């Protein structure tokens, strides 16, 4: 880390501590007044082209040291010494404020609003300090992620949300939360002139489930694997893998190599079906239902395969801290080979069909352009970033699982439109097939699960994976007694979604669903954190309520 010297030279005394957390992770503790300067210094470093704001974590460390803390996690990509750098600052408990990074880097927008919502840590100078995560009827000044808030509480406030006033002479065209083009609830408030989109406001976090609070409050390391997998209905496995990798790194657990390969294969299978799903959705949104059906038909091969391999079509549930639970027996290996063979021939045909459907290509071409500069400013991830010319991939830049041993290309397109994103995904499907084939060939023997005992408390570490939608980052701060003190999961869409308004501007409401879908949004991924779902509590029937009460009581007892 030659740049650390440079950093020290620049900020000198005010850097309080630099320590290495894992082989590719560094944590730099700085004075809270220069926090934003250090972050911006790294983000705009002339030699680090693809530096990303990966995640930001706020923690209530008052029980430990009487302070709040915030960490900006940056990933340095596209270079040989690719690392994750955490920049941490402690904030006083009575006045938790820090200078906002958002004015310098748009990508920090949501992170800082989230910290403000959930922990009451105020980012000073934030351009849009409206509520982001908490529901409209959540009372102000109640911060659910603080340690003095119990996870089963659900306070009621007045329902209100300050949407932006429509610009002069525009009409409001709301998309969502209930709209056929959205698979999950989200609200895009388009301000339109006829068909043309002038501006866009966003409100999301409808499917906010409180996974992080529950994980911190009552689950053990192994149990969190399952809830982490349920962060997303499509790319859940990448989440549980990222989580396991974080805990494994914290506990310095040696994961058996066979388990790493199995994880790799499953991750790539997941990418296959996720991308196929996306292609189907894109076709459906443009009215091309044949493409939709055929993409999903191919996807079904992968789903069947996953069911045979893991016992379930989705939410495989085979990840545990230290390895995996199910082995690939030989007959299952054959199945994979069969499916890949079928997929290769049929997928080629599907791609031919899609690209020769003139009307479909016309709808995708030149639509929803996200130029490289904006892509960088918003820190967008995955195929969205690669479609805009950003050359990065966690699998290549920060190898995990078995990716270090495997050979694959990272497709990058410069056009930045929907078509470029589609092409990136199509090429990634070919690469995934190739990766699985390699991994299957090289699959080593041996154990699949490593035992672990006590993991030392209060270690901070992140685990990252390249989900189909981009980089997933799971931050874990271990706690006493095999529980997590702070858990922060960041899905790829969390970085991609804020860029959507910029992509929509200037296009038409006909393009809007396609543009929104082109980032392959995964709202529930993005909206995981914090408290138990308030909504479902209202509608449950008596029987269930009793049961829930009992179960809450029971778990408190545990």
């Amino acid at each position, binding site marked *: 880390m030659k740049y650390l010297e440079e950093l020290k030279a620049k900020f000198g005394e005010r850097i309080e501590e630099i320590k290495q957390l894992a082989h590719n992770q560094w944590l730099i503790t700085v004075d809270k007044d220069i926090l934003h300067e250090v972050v911006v210094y790294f983000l705009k470093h002339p030699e680090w082209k693809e530096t990303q704001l990966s995640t930001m974590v706020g923690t209530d460390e008052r029980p430990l040291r009487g302070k709040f803390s915030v960490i900006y996690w940056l990933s340095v990509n596209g270079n040989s010494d690719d690392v994750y750098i955490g920049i941490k600052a402690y904030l006083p408990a009575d006045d938790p404020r820090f200078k906002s990074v958002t004015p310098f880097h748009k990508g920090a927008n949501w992170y800082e609003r989230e910290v403000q919502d959930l922990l009451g840590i105020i980012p000073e100078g934030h351009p849009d300090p409206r509520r982001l995560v908490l529901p409209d009827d959540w009372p102000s000044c109640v911060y659910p992620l603080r340690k003095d808030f119990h996870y089963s509480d659900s306070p009621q406030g007045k329902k209100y949300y300050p949407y932006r006033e429509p610009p002069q*002479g525009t009409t*409001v065209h*709301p998309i*969502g939360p209930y709209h056929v083009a959205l698979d999950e609830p989200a609200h895009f*408030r388009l301000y339109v002139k006829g068909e*043309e989109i002038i501006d866009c406001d966003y*409100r999301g976090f409808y499917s906010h489930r409180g996974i992080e609070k529950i994980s911190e409050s009552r689950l053990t390391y192994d149990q969190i694997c399952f809830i982490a997998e349920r962060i997303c209905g499509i790319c859940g496995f990448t989440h549980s893998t990222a989580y396991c990798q974080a805990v494994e790194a914290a506990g310095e657990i040696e994961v058996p190599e066979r388990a790493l390969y199995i994880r790799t294969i499953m991750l790539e299978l997941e990418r296959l079906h996720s991308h196929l799903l996306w292609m189907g959705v894109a076709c459906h949104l443009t009215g091309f239902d044949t493409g939709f059906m055929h993409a999903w038909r191919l996807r079904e091969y992968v789903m069947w395969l996953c069911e045979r391999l893991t016992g379930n079509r989705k939410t495989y549930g085979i990840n545990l801290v230290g390895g995996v639970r199910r082995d690939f027996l030989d007959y299952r290996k054959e199945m994979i080979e069969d499916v890949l063979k079928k997929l290769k021939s049929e997928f080629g045909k599907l791609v031919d069909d899609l690209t020769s459907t003139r009307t479909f290509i016309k709808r995708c071409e030149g639509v929803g352009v996200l130029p490289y500069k904006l892509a960088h400013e918003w820190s967008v991830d995955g195929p969205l970033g690669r479609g805009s010319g950003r050359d990065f991939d966690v699998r290549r830049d920060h190898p995990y699982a078995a990716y270090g041993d495997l050979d694959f290309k990272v497709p990058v397109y410069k056009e930045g439109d929907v078509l470029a994103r589609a092409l990136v995904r199509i090429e990634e499907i070919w690469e995934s097939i190739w990766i699985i084939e390699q991994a299957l060939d090289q699959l080593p023997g041996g154990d699949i699960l490593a035992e672990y005992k006590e993991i030392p408390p209060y270690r901070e570490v992140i685990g990252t994976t390249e989900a189909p939608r981009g980089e997933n980052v799971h931050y874990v701060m271990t706690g006493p007694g095999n529980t997590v003190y702070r858990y922060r999961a960041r899905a790829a869409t969390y970085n991609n979604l804020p860029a959507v308004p910029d992509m929509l501007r200037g296009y*038409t409401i006909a393009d809007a669903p396609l543009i929104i879908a082109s980032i392959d949004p995964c709202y529930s991924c993005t909206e995981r954190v914090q408290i138990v779902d308030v909504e479902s509590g209202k509608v449950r029937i008596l029987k269930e309520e009793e049961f829930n009460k009992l179960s809450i009581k029971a778990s408190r007892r545990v």
Partner: protein
Amino acid sequence: MGEVVKMKELFTLAVILYFASMLVALIFKKNYKLSISLGHAFTALASLSLLGFTINAIPLALQGKAIDIVYNIGVAKIPFHIDGLSLILCFVLGALGLATSVYSPKYMEFYEKLGKGWLYIILYSTFVLSMILIVTVSNLFWFLFLWEVMTFASYVLIIWESEEEYVRKAGWKYFVTMHITSTLPLVIAVALLYAKVGSVDGLNFANLASLKLSPIFYVLFLIGFGSKAGVVPIHFWLPDAHPAAPSNVSALMSGVMIKVAVYGLIRTTCFILKPDVTFGYIVAVLGTITLTVGTLYALKQTDAKRLLAYHSVGQMGYIWLGVGVGIIFIAKGGAYAAFGAIALAAGLFHLVNHALFKGLLFLSAGSILYRTHSRDLNSLGGLAKLMPFTAIFTLIAAMSIAGEPPFNGFMSKWMIYQSTFLSGNGLLVFLGVMALFISAATLASFIKFYTTAFGGEPTKLTQDVKEVSSSMLIAKGFLASLCLLLGLVPALILPLLLSPGSALTDANLTSWITTKYWLVMIKAPSMPLNAESYFNPLLFVAVFGVMFLGVFASFPVNKKLDEPWTTGEPVKMENYKLKAKHYYLPFEDYIRGLYHSGDELSKFGNAVKDALVYAYLSVAKTLHRWAAKLSGAVTGIGKWYVSSVKEVYLDETALSPAIKAIKASAVVIEELDSLNMLFTVTLIVLALMLALMLL
């Protein structure tokens, strides 16, 4: 014979009643409301007697006979010749005059703060009367004189709200353009003819028709009447001028005044000159260009009255197209003559229909303006709930102008389609295709007009609005029912419409067009057997009505209301409706090339106008020097006007000398008879025009 006398009396009665209205207005000069109410009571009576006259005269016209009247007003004898063509315009004037007369007393309260009710009545009566006389007079000189009176009266009515900057500008534009492009060519034509015949009496239509005239007159009349009719490229004044006037006057201007130009065109080029094929093509092509440009521009408008004014341009295009095709085939003669007569009738039918629905639309726009004080479609909304009758009448008018069956607009458009598509001529078919396309554009525009003003929920601006008073509603209801009636039973008016055509041809029309009350059937040359075009509006309405009521009764609906669906998050209703200016944006964006060339065209028109104004002023200055030698009096007026400001402002004192000047012009010209110097005459008339213009 006695019947003819009675008819003449009815006509004279109408004229006298108009004069009486002026007198009454002058008597009750002090009382704004009273002067207007009484004045309009007289104009309403006048319109009624005109209508009565028209209806009585129709059978005569159908026999191919005309009514001749001569008024001797001391200084001159004014001859009138009323045939079928005149009666069509008389009918329009009577119907629309009646509607506006009923509508106006209440509506003019809107302008009470401006005062001068008596002047308004005088101008109104002058305006309408001049038009009545224009379409009946049979001497070209008097035609021109009345033409000037009409222009002048309409000009003053346009600048009624003269404290508004845009109104003054529009008025100025109108006045200058009219004189340069309409009056000037006509004056030149009249002067040339005068040089030929040598006396005012010689300018009688019948006399002129017997002469062999040079083709230059086609051009002069085309320009002169075309610019008054708002034909592209001299249409740019119209969308400014018509909306500037009070709505009732706008209705008359759009409804009748521009039709008078069509009358003039037909009268001069078909009855005085001989119908000519090339000229017909020019008229048809100009008509198509006009309907395309006018309507596509109208598509963009969000000011209610401006939108309507642009549609006046567009619909004039339809009329010209029909008339043009008519002229072509009448000129061709032979087997096509009857077809030409049908086409001419189609154009005239659209003329009548346009007068009715455009008048109605302007009255509706006036009602909206009267209640909401706004003509901006972007800020209106929900009026259907608050002004239900106005909404229904407007919808009828909108559907008529958009050409939806069974309203009258459809019938005339249908006939225009027949006369173009069945012509067997590729070019005319293409013109028909454009007409069909523009019909859709008209529909688009009026769906916008109706739904932005009347659709949706009331906005901030309209929430306290009430329905207008019954007299205004009656006026609109009268026009609306005429729209429906002529659409359902076109045979009521078709024979009259066919009469000018049959007067121009020898063909027997009955074998080509069947007009029973319930059926219109058209045959074209070389049409195979059993392939005629026919339409039976009454049967259509019966079938449609039965089916509509049938399904309505079989699948009844209860009124269960809820808010419109906002996909789950609250949206303010006022922000949830498409603004008028955002209608059809992608389409308008696509045809922006057309808009661009349209802008260029009107720029060109404007430039020509400016150049002419410049030339005009230079000539006027030269004239001013010339005239000094001729007549001190004329010079004095000329000098005063030339040196006075360009900006126009209406003053009561300025008005009377102007009228005197116009009247004096007749005397002046008569006196100059002996000079027999063509150029001088023209220049002196020009000086008069200049004087008028600078007023």
